[in-house]
């Protein structure tokens, strides 16, 4: 039984393929087209999945789309009519994609994939999210909580899973949405919506939530966890240009101008910003104000999420919780759920956003419609593209670089450790690319976390990003608790996917300063069975330094998707300040280019 899941036409187009109860491949379209958050029909990702599964379209039994376009169209119509005439520009702008793409999804699938319409199924947006977490989790029964910007109508759902039965208990509908509340404040803080939310989370660490009371004027939460936005502050439901109104700026002051250099006393003024501006002190005060707003929206979002989690527990009585939807990528909130609610364990699928809904759609068909007894537990995220050593060698030859090929992994690992200890920044490319937004040791940029200057070095030479953005640590799972306050770190699945922010042990902050973000870290535990070469690299680094931790950030430059192919990696290597590049068994040092 072969089931293809598809998500597209919203944020992150993706495809996932289940072949006879095995999840054989999953990838986002952006990795192939090199367009970040590409939302177009995922032709490339589908082709990759079918090749990875060794099947043709004739062998597909079902193709499942992640949401129901008609219900979403209903939302467009009703929102347009309820806000007419203010909503008319929004309607006309949206209509283009509806008339050309979104209404005809089934037709597109039948023609592009090449299956008859009888094989095309439609899930619901939040049900796909819920399935992507629950059916990929190791739990036999669990509460399920999903939240994002919006699906068809739902923005938040509480549900419960038991065996192959997954059902929704409660829904909160558009326009009342935690995701859209956070996104509106993301826009207010000068960041790109659906891209800058991570930046708000990073910026929040440098502020105090002294405006939380003001944010609570925009949203009200009841004792049952349900919440209500005061729409006077927002315009996302009637505008494609603005997400907040004058009422919000009257409350919080003028919005932050996009691309303004951000620095506070705590971040310091990085050298790579150039000379200090004339209005340095004024900007310092302004930036602290915006950091405090970021801290405030983060605090309010966490409170909303925690209360929804508590309500999930009250409603279901379950001891485990599965989380999905874009808001479930808020790793700070995830850790608080684990620590501050009655749930004993949580599971978050590594691709919790809309891309992951392609997986959820296929799992829903496999588990609920076909009632299959086998469960597919996702304990690693290495489901994307891979390349043979021959293909890597060809790409290197075409690039003009000189590479050393290592027959023995141990020698390669030592060569990389030499460079890391020497303060070099390494591009690390091996095996299959990761499913989801986090690089987990197969498409990563690595550096020595013990050097306090490494954060600025990586930011300045490679990532070209703001000084307040954190870098994550990869740590051997067995030794995680020595460095980070994460109880039962070894058995935590979200920690494998870098989905929990936890405190760095106070006595270790000075040991790994480059991955400590105001005393916290978005930790990734690395297990030998799921990524043996990456595990061995960290282990060897630990043997040499007694610190089995590496700084790990995604292998991309600002504005680009994570690299997918050796050619992408070589291109990024050439266009950034990376010192060395590991491609499978090959190692390239920059100064050795012919």
């Amino acid at each position, binding site marked *: 039984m072969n089931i293809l899941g598809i998500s597209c036409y919203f944020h992150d187009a993706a495809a996932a393929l289940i072949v006879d109860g095995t999840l054989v491949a999953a990838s986002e379209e952006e990795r192939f087209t090199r367009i970040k958050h590409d939302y177009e029909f995922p032709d490339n990702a589908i082709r990759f999945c079918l090749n990875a599964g060794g099947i043709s379209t004739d062998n597909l039994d079902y193709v499942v789309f992640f949401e129901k376009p008609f219900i979403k169209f209903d939302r467009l119509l009703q929102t347009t009519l309820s806000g007419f005439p203010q909503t008319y520009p929004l309607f006309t702008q949206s209509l283009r994609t509806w008339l050309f793409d979104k209404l005809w999804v089934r037709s597109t699938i039948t023609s592009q994939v090449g299956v008859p319409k009888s094989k095309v199924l439609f899930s619901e947006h939040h049900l796909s999210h819920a399935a992507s977490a629950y059916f990929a989790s190791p739990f036999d029964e669990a509460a399920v909580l999903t939240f994002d910007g919006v699906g068809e109508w739902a923005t938040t759902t509480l549900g419960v899973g038991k065996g192959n039965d997954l059902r929704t208990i409660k829904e909160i509908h558009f326009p009342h949405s935690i995701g859209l509340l956070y996104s509106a404040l993301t826009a207010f803080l000068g960041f790109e*919506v659906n891209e800058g939310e991570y930046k708000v989370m990073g910026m929040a660490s440098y502020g105090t939530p002294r405006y939380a009371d003001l944010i609570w004027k925009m949203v009200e939460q009841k004792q049952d966890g349900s919440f209500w936005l005061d729409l006077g502050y927002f315009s996302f439901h009637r505008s494609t240009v603005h997400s907040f109104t004058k009422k919000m700026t009257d409350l919080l002051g003028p919005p932050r101008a996009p691309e303004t250099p951000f620095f506070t006393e705590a971040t310091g003024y990085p050298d790579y910003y150039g000379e200090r501006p004339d209005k340095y002190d004024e900007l310092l005060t302004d930036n602290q104000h915006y950091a405090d707003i970021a801290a405030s929206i983060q605090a309010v979002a966490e409170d909303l999420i925690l209360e929804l989690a508590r309500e999930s527990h009250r409603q279901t009585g379950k001891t485990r919780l599965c989380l999905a939807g874009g808001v479930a990528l808020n790793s700070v909130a995830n850790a608080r759920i684990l620590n501050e609610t009655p749930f004993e364990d949580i599971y978050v699928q590594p691709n919790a956003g809309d891309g992951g809904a392609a997986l959820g759609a296929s799992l829903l068909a496999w588990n609920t419609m076909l009632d299959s007894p086998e469960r597919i537990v996702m304990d690693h995220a290495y489901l994307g593209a891979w390349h043979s050593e021959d293909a890597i060698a060809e790409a290197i030859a075409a690039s003009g670089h000189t590479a050393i090929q290592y027959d023995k992994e141990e020698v390669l690992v030592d060569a990389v450790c030499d460079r890391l200890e020497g303060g070099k920044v390494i591009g690390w490319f091996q095996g299959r690319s990761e499913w989801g937004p986090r690089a987990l040791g197969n498409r990563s940029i690595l550096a020595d976390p013990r050097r306090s200057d490494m954060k600025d070095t990586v930011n300045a030479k490679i990532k070209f990003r703001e000084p307040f953005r954190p870098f994550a640590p990869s740590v051997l799972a067995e030794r995680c608790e020595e460095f980070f306050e994460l109880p039962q770190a070894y058995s935590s699945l979200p920690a494998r996917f870098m989905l929990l922010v936890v405190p760095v042990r106070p006595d270790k902050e000075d040991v790994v300063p480059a991955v400590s973000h105001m005393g916290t870290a978005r930790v990734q535990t690395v297990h030998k069975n799921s990524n043996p070469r990456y595990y061995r690299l960290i282990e060897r680094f630990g043997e040499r330094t007694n610190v089995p931790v590496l700084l790990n950030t995604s292998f991309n430059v600002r504005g680009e998707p994570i690299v997918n192919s050796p050619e992408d990696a070589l291109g990024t290597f050439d266009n950034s300040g990376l010192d060395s590049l590991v491609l499978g068994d090959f190692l390239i040092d920059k100064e050795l280019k012919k």
Partner: protein
Amino acid sequence: MKIAREIFDKFGIAGELLAFLWHRKLWWMIPFVAVLLLFGILIVVGSTTGVGPFVYTLF
């Protein structure tokens, strides 16, 4: 032949959309929808940009 099949399929989907609106007791919206669609199509045909700066695709 393929084009004919695709057109036929799209007519089928349009019919299903009307059936969907009827089934969900949204039949009262059909006249509004018809007018909005008519003006909308004219604007879509006559303009070149369809994506606003607020890139979060809500609809």
